[in-house]
């Protein structure tokens, strides 16, 4: 079984997000693997372990640093890694989905995993767009996948533990909300070892390169309707103020 994982390298939201004009200043932000892609990589490796096959992780190299992410994916059990050398830090989901679709079509996938969403999916997620471009069905919000005899059984989550089980004939694109087991840990020593030996495939971006069709007018932190009253001081002083507040309201 040919298992593909399409990943996104996205601006880290752990740090400040500087703005240049009406969009992020992509030259000044750190890029990290989309957190939902950690789940989709894990789900792909779990499917391989249960049903056999090879896992190929493919992503668009926006800033020339995708190798680190691909090495980690290999350390977690992926078999092959491919980067699409776009070198365009501001490429939107539509562009990335277009390039990924061309690369993945050539791989003849049986199942394509993506993270269900990313925090920079302003113009939508790559999973449904890949499915549309590859003319495959898409199902997202998925929290488990079992593949038997050319068909997948997936659980899709709605909310609050309510969900539904679906049977899908392959090939299919799946948007993973959470893998059926928490993502495994890859020791740094193993990642380093792989970084020295792994061959990462390179593909030039191809296709129509069509973007999202959105004109940016502004990018800014939200204008808050209000702001929390902030407790200051040492952690002990903060704790004392919280406890006093709670006692005053009969909550402690």
């Amino acid at each position: 079984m040919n298992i593909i994982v399409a990943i996104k390298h996205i601006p880290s939201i752990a740090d400040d997000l500087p703005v240049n004009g009406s969009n992020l200043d992509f030259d000044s932000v750190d890029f990290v693997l989309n957190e939902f892609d950690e789940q989709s990589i894990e789900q792909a490796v779990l499917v391989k372990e249960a049903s056999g096959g090879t896992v190929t992780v493919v992503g668009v190299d926006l800033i020339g640093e995708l190798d680190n992410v691909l090495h980690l994916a290999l350390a977690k059990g992926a078999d092959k890694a491919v980067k699409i050398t776009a070198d365009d830090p501001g490429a939107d989901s539509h562009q990335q989905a277009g390039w990924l679709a061309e690369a993945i079509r050539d791989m003849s996938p049986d199942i394509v995993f993506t993270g269900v969403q990313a925090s920079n999916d302003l113009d939508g997620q790559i999973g449904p767009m890949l499915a549309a471009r590859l003319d495959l069905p898409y199902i997202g919000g998925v929290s488990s996948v079992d593949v038997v005899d050319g068909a997948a059984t997936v659980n899709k989550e709605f909310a609050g533990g309510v969900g539904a089980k679906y049977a899908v004939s392959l090939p299919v694109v799946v948007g993973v909300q959470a893998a059926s087991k928490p993502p495994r840990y890859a020791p740094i020593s193993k990642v380093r070892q792989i970084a020295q030996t792994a061959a990462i495939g390179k593909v030039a971006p191809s296709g129509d390169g069509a973007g999202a069709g959105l004109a940016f007018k502004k990018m800014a932190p939200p204008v808050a309707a209000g702001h929390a009253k902030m407790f200051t001081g040492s952690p002990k002083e903060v704790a004392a103020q919280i406890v006093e507040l709670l006692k005053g309201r009969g909550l402690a």
Partner: protein
Amino acid sequence: MSNDIFVITEHMDGKFSDVSFEMVGKAKELAAALGGQAVAVVLGGGVDVNGFASDSTIQVDDPALAQFNPEACGKVIEALAREKSPRLVLFGWTATGMDLAAWLSARLGQPCVAYVKGVSLDGGGLTVSSQVYGGKMVAEVAPQGDMAILAVLAGSFPVEAGQGSTAASQIASPVPLDGLKVKFVEAIKPAAGDVDITAQAKLVSIGRGIGGKENVELAEELAQALGGTVSASRPVVDAGWLPRTRQVGKSGLKVKPKLYLMLGISGAPEHLEGMKSAELIIAINTDKKAPIFNVAHYGATADLFEVAEAMLELL
């Protein structure tokens, strides 16, 4: 091209979601300004379809739409959009809408905006605001072209404006829905047996900042000292540190406790959807720009472990 606005409503167990009404209300306002109609689109049956304030309501009923099926819904919506050429197609940024909006965008070659918090018209031009980067930034964009597909965050518009009594008209599916590759098998109900966090008056809620499973105990001790229980944001549950029954937010449960004490939760829109109605929200986070401080009543930029331990000594 028309100036109509299509709202793809969503329902489960005989009830429409709030966001369906929110979108219909907004669509009415926008359609009136554009000189078009707000059209509520209902896929499937088993629900009272005559409760929207839309200009018209279309119900497409077919056995393949009896339960949510992304493939069947996609085919129907694509056919309707191609036939009627609405100015806007609105989806909820929900478990169902997220399967369809970007897909439709790629199928039709029309722009899509996700995480939508606001839509406005000035001089006939459309401006859409979107809450991206985990709620840390708001993007304002103008979709180019004749049609735009928007996926709207729940809670962005008032519910009441979309409630009414427009009589729906039933139509047959505009496309054949046989030979689907996706088949609904069965519903999955929530696992029973754990505490019901929606019934708790006090929640100590932990996020990614808790760092690891070994630190959950500290939050549990604090919750116990306060007479409450521990809940969490999605990353904590996805990491396996707490069971799914403890998850607050869009893909988890909606809670409205007297106290919601947040340790290491940044406040992404998906989490806010589940807790913003709590009576008293206190947030501890090391990132002073965390969006949660725009929502919490009280906050502190501090190390959650030190604050929690100090609170335990005082309780």
